[in-house]
């Protein structure tokens, strides 16, 4: 779960990472005091807001309110800002990049620092990024902090503050189950202070049950996306016309790959996860009918469930809601033959082979 900038900053602040003065507004009228040069920033959980016009510098209250109104009308990568962060403009001397993320290969967190702050880190060459693994059993070490300070040529002023920020950022990262905690830029101001100019924080979704206090960000979802999410089904909208239901991310992706072999294009697809629970398959079928694809391709490789039970579930949905589009069903597992017979008996195309199923669905989709 990505946190909006202002929430990320508030959390960092509570861990002793300094942030600029500021407040959040939801309407232009809420913009109050502009006693100093300020910046208004659209609060969206995606990048690219500056390019979209979501960051505006202002000097007067009038300017600020006009800017706020403009920002609230924007759409940034599909998100409409509902909140604006009004912040004191910083007197910038230097901009530093700082982040902690989880390194899959190393299997532990990785700290990155660079003198090239304020720009996208992907554009910074590798030799200008300092990287160090942080082992969670020992945390950020003094020698690492010494190295970072030296690498960033960050002696006082700011050096001691940097040490504290590194320790605090790590503590924050680990205690809050972060996948990413990025401060970019970390600003050194004219008066020698260090402040988080912007912050991107992603909390590991699987940990949210123990961070109830953090879960209040309303995701912008379509009604279908919301229903899928509530059922624990992964939903992805693609641009094709074949509705794919499969169990497991890998199998779902393999199905898309296989459709491509025959010119078929996935449209909506629903991934039940590793399960072959007939109830979940039923629910996915209901959702898929709402999405009205041209053809539905069901691909279930069963482990725990008998295929005739899955088939019975599909037939129940057909009974209840009716299915107006062709269905290609490919079910493997226990009692698979009986399952296929039940489905073909109800007018569906029931096959054994994934490849064949994809060919048949592509033919229908492409026709």
């Amino acid at each position, binding site marked *: 779960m990505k946190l909006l900038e202002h929430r990320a900053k508030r959390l960092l602040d509570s861990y002793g990472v300094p942030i600029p003065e500021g407040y959040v507004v939801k309407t232009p009228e809420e913009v109050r005091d502009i006693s100093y040069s300020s910046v208004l920033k659209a609060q969206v959980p995606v990048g690219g807001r500056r390019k979209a016009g979501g960051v505006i510098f202002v000097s007067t209250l009038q300017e600020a309110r006009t800017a706020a109104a403009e920002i609230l009308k924007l759409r940034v990568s599909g998100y409409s800002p509902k909140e604006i962060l009004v912040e004191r403009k910083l007197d910038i001397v230097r901009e530093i990049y700082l982040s902690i993320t*989880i390194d*899959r*290969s190393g*299997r*532990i*967190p990785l700290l990155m620092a660079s003198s090239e702050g304020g720009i996208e880190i*992907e554009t910074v060459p590798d030799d200008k990024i300092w990287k160090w693994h942080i*082992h*969670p*059993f020992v945390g950020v070490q003094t020698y690492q902090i010494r190295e970072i300070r030296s690498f960033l040529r960050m002696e006082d002023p700011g050096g001691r503050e940097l040490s504290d920020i590194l320790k605090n950022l790590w503590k924050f990262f*680990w205690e809050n*189950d972060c*996948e990413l905690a990025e401060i970019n830029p970390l600003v050194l101001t004219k008066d020698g202070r260090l402040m988080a100019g912007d912050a991107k924080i992603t909390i*590991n*979704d*699987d*940990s949210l*049950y*123990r961070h109830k206090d953090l879960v209040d960000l309303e995701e912008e979802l379509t009604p279908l996306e919301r229903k899928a999410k509530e059922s624990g089904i*992964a939903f*992805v909208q*693609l641009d094709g016309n074949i509705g794919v239901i*499969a*169990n*497991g*991310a*890998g*199998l*779902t*992706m*393999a199905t*898309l*790959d*296989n*459709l*491509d*072999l025959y010119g078929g294009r*996935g449209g909506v697809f629903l*991934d039940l*996860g*590793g399960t*072959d629970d007939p109830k979940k398959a039923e629910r996915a079928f209901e959702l898929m009918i709402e999405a009205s694809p041209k053809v539905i391709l069901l691909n279930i*490789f*069963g*482990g*725990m469930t008998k295929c005739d039970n899955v088939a019975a579930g599909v037939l129940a949905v057909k009974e209840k809601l009716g299915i107006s589009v062709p269905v290609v069903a490919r079910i*493997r*597992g*226990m009692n698979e033959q009986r399952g296929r017979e039940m489905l073909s008996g109800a007018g569906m195309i029931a096959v054994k*082979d*994934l*490849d064949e199923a*994809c060919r048949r669905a592509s033919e229908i989709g492409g026709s």
Partner: protein
Amino acid sequence: MSAILTKNTKVLVQGITGHQGSFNAGQMMEFGTKVVGGVTPGKSGETVLGLPVFDTMAEAVKITKANTSIVFVPAPFAKDAVLEAVDAGIKTVAVITERIPVRDSIEFIQYAKLRGTRIVGPNCPGLASPGKAKVGIMPNSIFSKGKIGVVSRSGTLTYEIVNALTESGLGQSTVIGIGGDPVIGTSFVDALRLFERDRETESIVLIGEIGGTAEEEAAEFIRKRMSKPVFAYVAGRMAPPGKRMGHAGAIIARGRGTAQSKISSLEAAGVKVASVPAEVPKIVLKGA
């Protein structure tokens, strides 16, 4: 593969009294696995499928001499279960549970490393060596005994491909589902290293997917260290960039971790890569 599962593998099922635990305990036994008991706190004295249930792993290990465990306990309690297994002296723990917080996984994987325990998973279908043992949830019907080692990040896609191998007469020495989470105990490289050493394995099928750089690292390892032939399939050529495809492992970001990057790396390391699952047995038969 003697490096992980052997005829002496003795398995405890952590969370045996749950639906998944008891069902799979039965399936593992049908596969021929020596399942010697289960653990569910507070259920000591009960039996499941005739197997004794213990309160603690320490007691269960003491009595059954188990060396392996499989974890089905819900995500919030999985870390505790794995640490308990490690402290009880278990040598291999397959963690089936999905949606475990990544911090918990990091902790139990590092702790297991410190104590010399192998972790497979989390969020994985486990592992199986036909004729020896299965410690996982993969359907028994897909396997046949043979010389191919299979390692996969995916769950059901593994079933698909192992099944396809079996239907083409290509039996398996060991199948390892390493799991799709960002942080896992046994990586592609770890599994490849085991297969390279394993006398019962003659060639390897690697099943990857988009996201992360595990396949690229595997390619590097194959190029430098593997003498046995490796075949691969990488799922996700047609997946849309930047979208989550069901679990955290499948994110494409910044041009790295794409199917194309993985396929090119593997091919550059001399690996034949299939374009759809059904092609996997074909390239193996051709390559053999």
